[in-house]
């Protein structure tokens, strides 16, 4: 993971020349790749002429990292395709992903999403919730709080947050810092690419303590069962 992290920091630096960047991306990819796994497609490992490979930040196995980079391993393919297309069109804002997504062809998007959807790499260590956060997170995940019009997260995101194809992303094993950042973005109205305003509406009802608890709870669950 340290390789991916350093690369992520580096990508944003305009001063870095293209050759150097490509070389670093390749090193990161090799380091992140499990020894006996099938080789990732070129878009994941090397990217395009203009952009680094997905693996440079997300890892070839899709682990993500604790600097706000989401785990993609086992994520719902249709959901990832939609997010990349939304980055392309600007429906979803991201300083990192928008400049990259605009260079991806429809084929690149499909290929990358299919690769990551098929990964079931073990979930790397995430920060663990304390007992109170675990209980609060689990209650929201499994039961919700209808007195505040909050259905259980699992009622849309599937059993233990496994995701529901094609539209509802998996949450189990997701990086908690990423989930917290996204829920805060939903709450603040900065993210609004959800179908039917479903997530925005629910996120608005969550307190900061709810957000932390539920993110840590899902982060602590194992990956794809």
């Amino acid at each position, binding site marked *: 993971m340290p390789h991916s992290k350093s690369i992520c920091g580096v990508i944003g630096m305009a001063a870095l020349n293209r050759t150097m960047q490509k070389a670093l991306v390749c090193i990161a990819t090799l380091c992140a790749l499990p020894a006996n796994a099938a080789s990732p497609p070129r878009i994941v490992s090397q990217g395009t002429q203009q952009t680094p490979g997905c693996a440079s930040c997300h890892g070839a196995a899709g682990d993500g990292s604790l600097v706000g980079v989401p785990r993609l391993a086992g994520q719902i393919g249709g959901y990832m395709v939609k997010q990349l297309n939304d980055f392309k069109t600007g429906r979803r804002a991201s300083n990192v992903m928008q400049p990259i997504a605009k260079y991806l062809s429809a084929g690149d998007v499909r290929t990358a999403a299919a690769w990551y959807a098929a990964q079931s790499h073990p979930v790397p260590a995430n920060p663990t919730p304390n007992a109170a956060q675990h209980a609060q997170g689990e209650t929201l995940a499994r*039961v919700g709080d209808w007195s505040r019009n909050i259905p259980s997260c699992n009622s849309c995101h599937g*059993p233990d947050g496994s995701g529901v194809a094609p539209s509802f992303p998996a949450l189990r094993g997701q990086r908690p810092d990423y989930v917290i950042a996204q829920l805060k973005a939903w709450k603040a109205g900065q993210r609004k690419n959800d179908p039917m305003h479903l997530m925005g509406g629910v996120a608005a009802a969550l307190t900061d303590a709810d957000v932390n608890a539920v993110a840590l709870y899902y982060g602590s669950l194992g990956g794809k069962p």
Partner: protein
Amino acid sequence: MKRLLLAGFCTIAFAAAAHAAGFTPPPESAIPQGPFGDSVRRGEAIFTDTQKNAHGFTGNVLTCENCHLDRGRKADSAPMWAAWVIYPQFRSKNGKINSMAMRIQGCFQFSINGKAPPLDSALLTDLQSYFFWLATGAPTGKKMPGQGFPELPKAAKTPDAHRGALAYQAHCALCHGDKGEGRVSQGKMVFPPLWGAQSYNKGAGMYRVNTAAAFIRANMPYSQGGSLDAQTAWDLAAYINSQPRPADPRKAKK
């Protein structure tokens, strides 16, 4: 954006109104220890994972909770605490005085498209323990606010399946699928099928367009109850109930 905001406000106002009026059943943490509490817990488990915990009596993948949201707690979604206090009652559906146990048998035969569990079965006893416990402190014999699905005003235009089909794609298909097939994750039903072999049969209450319209208007989509206008709810109910589903077992037998 204005529409979104308006929808948001309506949703919040609707939810707040339903909540303010209502009865609150005890929290799960208040389920007592001992044999009665165990029965309550088993009843809740049957309610939320019916196929698994009422094995042998189910004929589709639906759960009790699919129509009675929030584990049978949610006001305006036919909550069990409000149902408990109005049984036994006469029902024209079968021309008899129905005990709660008989009423639940009806759910299994029609909504769950399965078999009626015997009146003295542990299964029906556990469900009734759960309902009785949810109704702790509720007034026996009173029609409580939040009971059933709030009746809709008569549709301004005759409910229309063609308009309903368009509204279905816009408001329902995301979760329930383009063909009403529902959605599954990790082998578990997440969003219930609305028609077809795995949905309720033609003897179910939900097969009545007014009942389905009332449920939809008050409760769908999740977290946005009250956001669809009444005409859309009527049209959706007409569309959904115009689709193929298992026959009414009472008629099939004739």
